[in-house]
């Protein structure tokens, strides 16, 4: 019996010939990540165990992205703690201020993850880096402390589920629509504990940005990781980003899968996940009656260049509807600068949008766009749980950037074709 890409990466990092689903292994890690919310707990534990140093100061990453620029005194104190720790232990990859972006957009962009890596992060969307052909998964702060000190992590080898994606992408349909469709199909626990592997001609045709979006939301189906084989596009993306050694793994033809799904992307339209679960998925065209108060285009799911490009294409020469706030959040400073250079800022400002500095902000109801009781938002983020963006009686609809931008213009959920 052959092995899947996930099994191969884990076997290599556990110095084993072969691993099997269900087996518990201790693997070497290439990177341990924490943010301004999860790192404080990790550092408390670090002090408790009396560790003298981190296992490798090049391989520990702190990104202060959630409640920054600091929203209140408590969050400022937390950031201060992490900053002082980073200085003391000379952590190479400490990001804040003008260097800081949303962690899962920032790490790949800065070349911190390479194909074949094992990455753990105290953030559930750490699964994003699977787009590069790496094994990456989210866990809690205590696990990250263990990783920071020992350079290792205990893991249960997951079963794998394969999604073969065929067909041609219709205009305005992207990675977000595909992953929402999949979560709608299998449910928020449909891939519980499993690796979600994506392949097929439609995946080869897909941009890296869209692949990040798909891998990012694996956790929304309960998945342990999402993974893609690194191909020419991955190699082109990695060009000049990292000096670290990378390794491309590929699943064997006789590898074992818990389930195999085939999806023709040509049959998909723009998708929207209704409150309060990411699996509550409908076609955008069925929701044209739903009025909205706020639009958020950003996050680790859809705050990349391709997303801003789609939003700019739709918002060009248009106006955001009266009484609607449209908040655009480029995910990293590099994306911010590039969007500005391309003239998107002018488009957004002319349309009446707000441009936010890179931050998680409203995605988790932190700041920069929190909802009042009874308000409704459409967002390109990844979760629409009760109270996720603010008041427990506010609502979040999830969509891709094209639907979100079209909805900003109409003041209700809208399809891109209605406005361009």
């Amino acid at each position, binding site marked *: 019996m052959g092995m899947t890409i996930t099994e191969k990466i884990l076997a290599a990092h556990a110095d084993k010939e072969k691993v099997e689903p269900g087996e518990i292994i201790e693997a070497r890690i290439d990177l341990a990540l924490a943010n301004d919310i999860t790192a*404080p707990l990790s550092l408390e534990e670090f002090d*408790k165990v009396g560790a003298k140093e981190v296992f490798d100061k090049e391989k520990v990453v702190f990104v202060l992205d959630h409640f920054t620029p600091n929203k209140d005194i408590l969050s400022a104190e937390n950031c201060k703690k992490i900053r002082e720790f980073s200085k003391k232990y000379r952590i190479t990859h400490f990001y804040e201020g003008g260097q800081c972006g949303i962690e899962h957009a920032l790490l790949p962009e800065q070349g911190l993850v390479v194909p074949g890596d094992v990455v753990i992060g105290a953030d559930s969307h750490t699964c994003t880096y699977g787009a590069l052909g790496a094994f990456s998964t989210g866990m809690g702060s205590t696990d990250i402390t263990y990783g920071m000190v020992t350079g290792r992590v205990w893991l249960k080898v997951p079963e794998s589920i394969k999604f073969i994606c065929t067909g041609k992408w219709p205009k305005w349909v992207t990675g977000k629509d595909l992953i929402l469709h999949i979560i709608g199909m299998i449910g928020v626990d449909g891939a*519980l504990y499993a690796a979600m592997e994506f392949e097929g001609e439609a995946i080869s045709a897909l941009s890296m940005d869209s692949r990040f979006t798909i891998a990012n939301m694996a956790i929304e189906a309960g998945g342990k990781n999402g993974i893609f084989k690194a191909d020419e596009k991955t190699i082109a993306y990695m060009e000049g980003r990292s000096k670290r050694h990378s390794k491309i793994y590929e699943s064997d033809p006789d590898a074992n899968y818990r389930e195999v799904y085939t999806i023709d992307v040509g049959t998909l339209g723009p998708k929207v996940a209704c409150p309060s679960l990411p699996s509550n998925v409908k076609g955008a065209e069925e929701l044209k009656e739903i009025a909205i108060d706020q639009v958020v285009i950003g996050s680790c799911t859809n705050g990349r260049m391709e997303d801003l490009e789609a939003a700019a294409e739709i918002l060009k020469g248009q106006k955001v509807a009266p009484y609607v706030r449209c908040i655009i959040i480029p995910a990293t400073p590099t994306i911010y600068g590039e969007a500005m250079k391309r003239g998107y800022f002018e488009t957004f400002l002319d349309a009446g949008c707000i441009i936010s500095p890179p931050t998680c902000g409203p995605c988790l109801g932190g700041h920069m766009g929190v909802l009042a009781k009874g308000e409704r938002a459409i967002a390109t983020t990844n979760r629409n749980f009760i109270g996720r963006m603010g008041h427990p009686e506010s609502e979040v609809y999830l969509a891709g950037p094209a639907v979100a931008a079209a909805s900003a213009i109409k003041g209700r959920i809208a399809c891109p074709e209605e406005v361009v």
Partner: protein
Amino acid sequence: MKVRGKTWKFGDNIDTDIIIPARYLAHTDPKVLGEHCMEPIAPLFPKQVQKGDIIIGGLNFGCGSSREHAPIAIAALGISLVIAKSFARIFYRNAFNKGLALLEADLTGLVEEGEEIEVDLSSGIITCKKAEVTAKPIPAFMVELVNEGGLINYLKKKLED
């Protein structure tokens, strides 16, 4: 070890934004986190719950973010145990790492809210009014971790050796 406690029933997919909303995540004090546990759907829960009480969940309990604040908030209220039909994987890890006990069993249709049940943690046998149910065994590695006193103690020992 046996625990006895009053049950609090919650449904399927109780996510971490329900267990502890993100706006409280700048706090690390367990007491403060406990005060806001389940606030979006059961604001009175932290006031009414008593030490030793047991949470009963449905499918996919603890789905969502990796915030360890979630098991910390539950444990801070003195909840002795969470029994659910299934758990989201990060929550499962975090709970054991933090010393909050979890058992997998489907009690949603069997117990009534407020009913007292008895659970033998070592055998996984749950005794409620209507029936006796055996929970899915806890993986051997987790048992070892719990016996070591959680991941941090395990690490401490390792560093001392």
